[in-house]
């Protein structure tokens, strides 16, 4: 069934291309014209957020919006990451979550860089996670730095990750699971889902962000590992 699918398509006929180019130009001009003629709305959202910041538990307005005021959107976003990670799971391979390999064709420069950068990346990620409550930072930034460190380790060839092991699956689910538990738990306390009690808001946000950091890091790392198919290739040896 897939034999006929070609990843290269022929470029459209030049006339069709010119016509479509004109149509895109027209659409873009209409968009710009509409944008230039609409009036700037009253900045009510910002004043609403600033008025409610004292009840949010954090000082960074973006973190407050992400995890407190619009926490439901972030919950769905973590769910999207987990769904995509589930779709890209490699086939079942036995073994622990990570395994060290004897270095066969590893660049010594890369090995040295990994030795220095991965611990620094872990510390940076923890710093970004903690400082997200006061300054720019947060769970997504910290998780992506962890994923970048993992990609370095995968490329260096010293370690392999088994994303289908029990440990990896537990860590993938950890973020969404913690978020859901907190969401339902506070519903039992305050009556509304995702409505944190004000005294506990800061601690709950930190708990959610910590779990989400690990999950996001592992999910992003798994995106790379699945596309590079390093896990499958190695499991067939």
């Amino acid at each position, binding site marked *: 069934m*897939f*034999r006929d*699918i070609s*990843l*290269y*398509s*022929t*470029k*459209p006929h030049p006339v069709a*291309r010119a016509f*479509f*180019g004109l149509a*895109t*130009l027209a*659409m*873009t001009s209409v*968009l*710009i014209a509409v*944008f*230039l003629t609409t009036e*700037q709305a009253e*900045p009510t*959202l*910002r004043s609403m*957020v600033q008025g409610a910041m004292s009840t949010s538990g954090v000082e960074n*307005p*973006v973190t*407050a*919006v*992400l995890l407190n005021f*619009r926490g439901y*959107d*972030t919950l769905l*976003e973590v769910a*999207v*990451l987990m769904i*995509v990670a589930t*779709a*890209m799971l490699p*086939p079942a391979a036995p073994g622990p979550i990570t395994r060290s390999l004897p270095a066969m064709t590893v660049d010594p420069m890369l090995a040295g860089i990994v030795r220095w950068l991965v611990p620094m990346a872990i510390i940076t990620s923890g710093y970004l996670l903690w400082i997200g409550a006061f300054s720019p930072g947060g769970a*997504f930034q910290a998780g992506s730095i962890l994923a970048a460190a993992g990609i370095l380790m995968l490329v260096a060839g010293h370690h392999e990750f088994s994303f289908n092991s029990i440990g990896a699956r537990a860590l993938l689910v950890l973020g969404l699971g913690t978020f859901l538990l907190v969401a339902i738990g506070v519903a039992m306390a305050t009556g509304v889902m995702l409505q944190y009690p004000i005294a506990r808001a800061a601690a709950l946000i930190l708990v959610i962000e910590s779990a989400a950091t690990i999950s*996001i890091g592992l*999910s*992003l790392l798994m*995106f*790379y590992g*699945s*596309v590079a*198919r390093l896990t499958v290739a190695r499991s067939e040896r």
Partner: protein
Amino acid sequence: MTQALIYSTGGLIVFGIGFYGVVIAAHILQKVLAVNVMSIGVFLVLMATARLPEGPPDPVPHAMVLTGIVVAVAASAIALWLICRIQVLGNTGDDPH
């Protein structure tokens, strides 16, 4: 010409370029790139309008763009994975697993 105007006009042009690229691009990898370029254009418009004349910027569009970046990387990853799978299945003719 305020700052918001410059960036949102640029964002709309980038959106148009991405839209043109989705249809015109020859290889399917370039189409995935074009969709990402379209999303960059949208983020430019969102962030530009979040810039208010005085004081700190509006944090709600910032949160929306953060969510959008993560969802865009997830969608690109699954699209690229599907492309590689199609390539593998097309070459060998059956599921190697």
